């Protein structure tokens, strides 16, 4: 437990962060764009075709067989991906097998976890899993928040995960890639079959850098599986199972436009803001997430674009039926898709050449020669909390519990304009505060906070302030918003924490931007 009280230093946003995490040395956050490691990328071992079947058939009898052949043993790092979202059947099975084999102290590096992974809490308790590096949603986050995980959690963005694997911050021993469709050589995609989920971008880094790569599918087709979103040339073993995912749970529950009048108002104000700021213009680009409010923003964008005869060059997704209909209507030229949220998205990706699959490498990786996130004109994101310095939190709630992952949120902050439409308070919990519980994004990258009671523009964005000064929209200062929230809800007390750390939050460059402490029980 000693490591959970490791040396803390103050980083560039004034947060106390550890210099060592789970035995690995760490760099505290130094400011946006400041940390540039002078090193070469991590390399995977050179393989030889001589060691692989001449007929290309790498299929083994079972997942257990594959894990044993891959050399599963104590202390290894195992990675999985969240393409099947809450319908994932694979991660739980992997650790059932590990338990059966008596393997201990594994490090699990999922690209995200979901409530369906609550099953794994028993393995965190009995020592099969030492700790999780990846988003912890719901039950796992709650478990970690109470200090019950043996190691420290490490939360990374989608781009940060690619960066960490590419840079060698995280060495993956075995990755298990669940795919809707694959051949026995290991070529795989997420497009066809009962567990179709769109693309497999989150597994890209793992397929390139992990020592052993296992592809698991419930839809094994004869070579070639085309298109090969994952190249079989990276793959060691392939496995056929009855079912890799539960189709109705793969389609995310949040991909419906909100019906809440308050959230629709937020979305409408956000779209109006973008219009008046001159962001919605011919050839522009946008990204909005999969939440109900974000979807509604997209819908209002579409209305405005139709009325004013404006076309967008591209939309980054999170694709879904709404974005697909904009593509088909000709309102956007391209969808650059990072994660497909429903079957309309999957079908469009399979059929429409302008619906392009991307990966965390092309879209988000900060240690590359640029990425797409920075090319987007406007991105609409959410947050659990924002503070008067425009810092935002997406991982913890105001009571201190770690309940969400970062997703692509941090990476998207590099868009030209970042807008967070959020309610001023949720059931008496103020969302605009003096200081966020956890800093996930520094205020300098967050431009606009849209609440139902007013819109605050970051003082750094003098151009936006100037453009909106005669607007009919309710422009206020962030301080005014905070005071309004407190007037309605009362001034909230701060959650109390123990000194013990439970997790750290990585910035997109691998430095630590904040840490999460154990809540007082």
């Amino acid at each position, binding site marked *: 437990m000693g490591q959970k009280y490791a040396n803390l230093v103050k980083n560039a946003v004034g947060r106390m962060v550890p210099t060592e995490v789970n035995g690995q040395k760490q760099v505290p956050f130094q400011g946006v764009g400041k940390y540039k490691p002078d090193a070469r990328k991590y390399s995977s071992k050179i393989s030889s075709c001589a060691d692989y079947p001449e007929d290309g058939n790498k299929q083994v009898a079972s997942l257990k067989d594959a894990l044993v052949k891959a050399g599963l043993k104590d202390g290894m790092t195992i990675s999985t991906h969240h393409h099947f979202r809450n319908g994932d059947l694979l991660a739980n099975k992997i650790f059932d097998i590990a338990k059966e084999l008596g393997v201990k102290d594994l490090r699990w590096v999922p690209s995200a976890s979901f409530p369906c992974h609550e099953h794994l809490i028993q393995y965190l308790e009995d020592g099969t899993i030492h700790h999780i590096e990846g988003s912890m949603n719901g039950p796992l986050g709650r478990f970690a928040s109470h200090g019950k995980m043996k190691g420290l959690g490490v939360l990374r963005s989608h781009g940060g995960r690619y960066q960490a694997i590419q840079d060698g911050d995280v060495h993956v021993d075995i990755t298990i890639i669940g795919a809707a469709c694959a051949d026995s050589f290991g070529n795989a995609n997420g497009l066809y079959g009962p567990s179709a989920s769109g693309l497999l971008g989150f597994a890209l880094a793992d397929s390139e850098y992990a020592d052993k790569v296992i592809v698991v599918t419930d839809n094994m087709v004869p070579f070639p599986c085309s298109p090969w979103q994952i190249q079989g040339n990276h793959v060691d073993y392939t496995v056929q199972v009855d079912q890799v995912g539960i189709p109705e749970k793969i389609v995310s529950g949040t991909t419906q436009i909100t019906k809440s*009048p*308050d959230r*629709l*108002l937020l979305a409408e104000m956000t779209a109006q803001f973008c219009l008046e700021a001159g962001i919605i213009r011919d050839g522009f680009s946008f990204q909005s997430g999969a939440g109900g409010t974000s979807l509604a923003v997209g819908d209002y964008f579409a209305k405005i674009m139709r009325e004013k005869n404006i076309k967008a060059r591209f939309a980054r997704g999170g694709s879904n039926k709404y974005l697909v209909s904009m593509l088909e209507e000709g309102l956007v030229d391209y969808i650059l898709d990072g994660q497909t949220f429903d079957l309309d998205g999957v079908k469009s990706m399979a059929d429409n050449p302008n619906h392009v699959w991307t990966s965390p490498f092309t879209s988000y990786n900060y240690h590359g020669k640029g990425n797409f996130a920075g090319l987007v004109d406007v991105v609409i994101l959410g947050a659990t909390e924002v503070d008067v310095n425009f810092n935002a939190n997406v991982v913890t709630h*105001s*009571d*201190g519990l770690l309940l969400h992952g970062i997703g692509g949120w941090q990476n998207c902050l590099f868009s030209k304009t970042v807008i967070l439409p959020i309610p001023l308070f*949720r*059931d*008496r*919990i103020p969302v605009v505060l003096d200081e966020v519980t956890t800093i996930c994004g520094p205020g300098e990258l967050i431009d606009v906070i849209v609440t*139902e*009671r007013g819109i605050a523009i970051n003082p750094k964005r003098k151009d936006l302030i100037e453009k909106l000064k005669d607007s*009919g929209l309710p422009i206020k200062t962030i301080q005014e918003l905070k005071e309004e929230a407190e*007037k*309605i*809800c*009362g001034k*909230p*007390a701060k*959650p*109390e924490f123990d000194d013990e750390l439970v997790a750290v939050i990585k910035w997109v460059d691998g430095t630590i931007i904040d840490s999460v402490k154990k809540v007082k029980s």
Partner: protein
Amino acid sequence: MSNKIATAGNTGKKVRSDCFVTLELKNSGGIKIEQKSKVEVLYGKANNELCNDILKFYGIENAKLSLEDKGAVPLIITARIEAAVKQLIDTDKEYLLDFIEENNYTSEKEQFRFSRLYLPGNTPSMMLNAGIHDPNGIILDLEDSVAFDRKKEAQLVVRNALRGINFYGAERMVRINQFPKGLEDLKYLVPHNVHMLLVPKCEGAEQIKELEEKIEDIKKQYKIERPVLLMPIIESALGVEKAFEVASASENVVALAIGLEDYTADLGTRRTNEAVESFYARTRLVNACKAARIQAIDSVFSDVGDMDALRENVKVSKGLGFEGMGCIHPRQIKVIHESFAPEADEIEKAKKVVNAFIDATEKGLGVVSLGTKMIDPPVVKRAETTINLAISLGLISENWREEFLNSEI
């Protein structure tokens, strides 16, 4: 009072921004407060202090109070505890939090009443954000949306809402209970800057007179000078026949509304989308209102999912002479405003007329003409109304004439 345990408020999975209070008076043992709150980390301590303060205010020294809180703001928690206390103790004392200064605005007889949003009087979660949707008025409802055994609780919630919730400039209306039960509601409303009372099932001037007497008593007691406006709701066959009598019963009656669910029930017929069955009642009501120089306000449109049908409905309503409509969902507000708003060609025509009128006045001409056509004074008046409406709805700027003259050149 023999009863020693009282409850107030709402509980259940779907309940938000509310709380459920159980109060048990004891003979000894002091005050015990049990709290189960969704926001305990942030407000547990503050809630505890509030509970203690209220019990002290009512002189309660030995009791067990349990608070099951789903994120209720203080003005709701206090209403709930007061409701529980008043079931156990005979008292007129009111536990009041501050009246917020933002709620001191007044309303005018002539202001627009296109939309008024109904808010069930015992459902706090819908009240906090009602004003942000920018309705012309909000109606805190004590009548049909409140269960019979919750009327007293709702009076306290509505009173506290009038004092402490900012409705951002919307006209502050309350629908009281039917006559004569509604008279009991007044003392919770009149002292707290209620702008207008909606009087359900109104069937004659007598009811209005009796209501006003009671209002005057309370106004005197609290030294209140501003008027309390009235919007009687006509929802019976007799009410329709008495529409003009009601409309002209008092200078504080500024509008009549029609309630079609009850009216069609009274006729023994069914309400249809085409609304032929209520055509007579609606036109009769409009005529009575115009004769009495007050506003005619239409019934609510209950299909909250169908905005196109709502839009059509408002057009018909506007065509009959109605000047407003009730809303039961915030998304209806914008559609109603847009549909009552003057259309583009109407505005353009009005600009020409008003401009000609200003021209004529400036030149000292007694007759206003547009081209070769003479314009009668009522036409000018209607055009002015249209222009003012368009300005207030943000459809044209206040300096429209400057732009108009430039475009004429």
